[in-house]
């Protein structure tokens, strides 16, 4: 009865505002995807599958599809092993310093993939400054081992292990502790409890996490671009990039089909994930207030050492490589007391006009997107919670799409939608606005979901009380809803800022001279051999990322449950 009550409550101004914001948001987030679909099934203005058939039968398409599936699939497997091991140990046992472990495990997900790739190439191969300094570099001429399918798979695995870790940990936390206690009182010990009780109950969330990891790995552009392009190994996203960069918008129709192909594989993965997640919710009832802490006994210290060693290897070591490279005068020179220099830092941060422009662009885009999304999401999430109309529910089920779909798909869709604005000759392609609109669409869910989570826990009587004393919709939004959901909105804004500030995939396809973003600049610096400068810039960005994450962590206790993504 309560949901029906909410449906009918309130005033007409709410209904009007809801429709208005919904229309704008649907145009922003879902229209591009629809436009892309139309492009794929038409040829020169009429419905035709000819183009689709042509592109899909090209050998380059088929090999890129195969490469995508292989790297994403095997990369997911590595994420699964690493992420699941960490999740089970952190969620079920009495390890110490869990909060620190979780925080460190989140960093790989927040560091942009092109920086992950850059940092790993700095600790391997013949020209690694770190290895040269230590005197263990392979001889000149030896290949860079990461410029290979195996390298891509390995780094995709590390990059996305946090996703498995998070979904599985959330699933494990929803297991009522009495279920495990009942197994133990029945005589099941240690691993047997895990295998026969915990494991079957977590399979749905494990499967959901695996599916979404696969989709994310499939859409990853930074890692296959940095590692695959030098090796001549193209995946679907890099194939789209290469075609578009090489031949411009003349191949737009062709890359649309490729984007649809990626989109189709991704949608299959998303549907699988939704299916698994809905299973998870079915049968778990009971108290989950106390987290599980099965004693590890004598194995605790060795396990802790092992886990921190893994974190050191995948997080700290590559950063040392990056740091070493950024401190030498020229790439390949070993780092010694007499060669150490901050020249690359100085050059990239203060001298290069491109980088300062990119800083301004990325900062403006990220801050602008955060502010615009707060302004859209706050009233929208509130009104959708109050008035569960059919359109609102449909939108709720689709709004994750622009974020879940690979960035390449959204970028191509945005180009199609904005290259020629309807009823005019104007174009947004090549301006900063196309990147801005693409960011709004892509990061919409990043802002919306935390705000929604906090508003779901909000007592509707607080709003009704304001209504009964005469406050208009605008006053209620300003005086009651905004202050109470401000922490969630702030967390969402920081997350959007964080992701947008580092973003590469979307801007790589949408940038032009003057609208470079930081992601693009790092990519281009590395591409043109300026590895020291690229490393210095990457270090700066990692620093910004960690500071922003620490900021969220610091205030996490003040956020409602479900707002900080790594504290679900």
């Amino acid at each position: 009865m309560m949901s029906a009550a909410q449906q009918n409550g309130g005033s007409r101004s709410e209904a009007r505002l809801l429709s208005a914001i919904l229309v704008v948001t649907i145009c922003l987030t879902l229209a591009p995807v629809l436009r892309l679909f139309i492009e794929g099934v038409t040829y020169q203005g009429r419905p035709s599958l000819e183009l689709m058939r042509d592109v899909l039968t090209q050998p380059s398409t088929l090999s890129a599809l195969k490469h995508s599936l292989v790297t994403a699939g095997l990369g997911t497997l590595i994420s699964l092993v690493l992420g699941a091991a960490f999740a089970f140990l952190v969620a079920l046992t009495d390890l110490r310093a869990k909060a620190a472990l979780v925080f460190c495990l989140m960093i790989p997900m927040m560091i942009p993939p092109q920086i992950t790739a850059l940092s790993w190439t700095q600790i391997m191969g013949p020209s690694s400054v770190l290895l040269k300094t230590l005197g263990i570099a392979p001889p000149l001429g030896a290949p860079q081992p990461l410029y290979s399918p195996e390298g891509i798979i390995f780094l995709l695995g590390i990059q996305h292990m946090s996703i498995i870790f998070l979904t599985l940990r959330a699933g494990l936390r929803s297991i009522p502790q009495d279920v495990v206690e009942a197994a133990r009182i029945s005589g099941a010990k240690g691993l047997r409890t895990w295998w026969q009780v915990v494991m079957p109950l977590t399979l749905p969330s494990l499967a959901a996490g695996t599916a979404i990891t696969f989709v994310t790995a499939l859409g990853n552009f930074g890692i296959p671009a940095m590692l695959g392009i030098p090796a001549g190994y193209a995946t679907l996203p890099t194939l789209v990039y290469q075609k578009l960069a090489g031949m411009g918008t003349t191949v737009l129709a062709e890359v649309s089909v490729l984007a649809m192909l990626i989109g189709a594989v991704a949608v299959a993965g998303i549907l699988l994930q939704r299916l698994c997640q809905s299973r998870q919710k079915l049968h778990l009832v009971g108290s989950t207030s106390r987290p599980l802490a099965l004693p590890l006994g004598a194995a605790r210290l060795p396990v802790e050492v092992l886990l921190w060693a893994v974190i050191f290897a995948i997080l700290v070591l590559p950063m040392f490589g990056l740091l070493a490279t950024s401190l030498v005068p020229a790439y390949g020179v070993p780092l010694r007391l007499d060669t150490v220099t901050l020249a690359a830092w100085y050059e990239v941060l203060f001298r290069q006009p491109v980088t300062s422009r990119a800083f301004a662009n990325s900062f403006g885009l990220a801050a602008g997107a955060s502010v615009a999304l707060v302004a859209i999401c706050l009233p929208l999430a509130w009104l959708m919670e109050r008035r569960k109309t059919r359109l609102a529910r449909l939108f709720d089920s689709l709004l994750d799409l622009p974020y879940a779909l690979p960035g390449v798909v959204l970028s191509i869709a945005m180009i199609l939608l904005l290259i020629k604005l309807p009823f005019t000759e104007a174009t947004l392609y090549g301006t900063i606005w196309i990147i801005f609109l693409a960011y709004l669409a892509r990061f919409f869910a990043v802002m919306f979901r935390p705000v929604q989570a906090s508003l779901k826990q909000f007592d509707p009587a607080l709003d009704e009380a304001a209504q009964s004393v005469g406050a208009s919709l605008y006053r209620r939004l300003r005086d009651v809803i905004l202050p109470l959901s401000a922490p969630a909105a702030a967390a969402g804004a920081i997350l959007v800022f964080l992701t947008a500030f580092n973003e590469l995939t979307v801007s790589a396809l949408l940038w032009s001279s003057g609208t470079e973003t930081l992601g693009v600049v790092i990519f281009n610096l590395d591409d043109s051999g300026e590895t020291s400068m690229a490393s210095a810039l990457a270090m700066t960005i990692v620093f910004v990322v960690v500071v922003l994450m620490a900021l969220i962590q610091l205030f996490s206790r003040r956020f409602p449950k479900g707002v900080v993504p790594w504290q679900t």
Partner: protein
Amino acid sequence: MADIDLSSVSKTFAGTPALEDITTRFDDGEFIALLGPSGCGKTTLLRILAGFEEPSSGRLRIGTREMANAETGANLPPEERNIGFVFQSYALWPHMSVRRNVSYPLEIRRFSKAETARHTAAALASTGLENYADRMPSDLSGGQRQRVALARCLVSDPCAVLLDEPLANLDVALRATMQGVFTDFHKRTGATMVYVTHDQAEAMAMADRIAVMDQGRIQQFDTPQTLYERPRNRFVAEFVGRGTVVPIQEVTQAGNAQQARILGARVAVQSAREAPVSHVCLRPENLTISEHGDLRSKVARVTYMGGKYLLETVTDCGARLFAETRARFEVGAQLGLTITTPWAFSED
């Protein structure tokens, strides 16, 4: 201050009726209680008065203004009705101090700073909250929070005050105190008050008139005394007070007096009109325990009520009757009961 007039108000939620054809009038300055079991529609009725729900059919008028009319589709939003609402959860804004919570309605109405301060101080004083004005709601106890909610709704001089189970979250002792606060508040302001509760003791203690609701309808709308002594049907008889409804076997009319055969005994009954009656309501007051009572029954349960005992007895023909006594009986004891002038009504 204003009266409230409802005509044929109905409400359905997704096809399920929650309120059916409510036509009634709450007079200016009356303290009305809406009483009923959960799911009877009392909260829905209150929310329609406040404007949080729109009626599916029918009309609502408060004072001189038509608030809702399902035929024309007119529905004045809650923020324009000038009505006070006290929520079960108090609904204090946690980010505002007590003073700001109370002054917010005046802020909305664009009162001057001095006016706002004066009215707020008066509202805080009348609820005994002067010393808590600068605290945050989270620092207050349940009873204090309820006072803040009351102060907030009275500060803007509403034309009616609606209260949705305001005492449900308080402990028993505090409930009695707060009942006093509400009654005093009603006396002082003369506001029309509509009070939703499922606790009949609360309704009896405070209300001028009680509307007993069940299954979306008002079953009876009368003073507490009338409800208790002259219930109109089986639901009201059983819901209000302690009583057993038993069928009448035969009625005989002798001049003005009416006699009926109940559980084999012949007794005089009272009823509302000449219309045929079918059932009587037997309350403890209608039953006297005596050695030679004509209704033989056995004690099934004894409950000490403080100063007296409540006996649940089973008669030979299987009816369960409640009687009160100052003497102690053992479970299983045989006793005789005499029925004196119970209230009879017709029930199909």
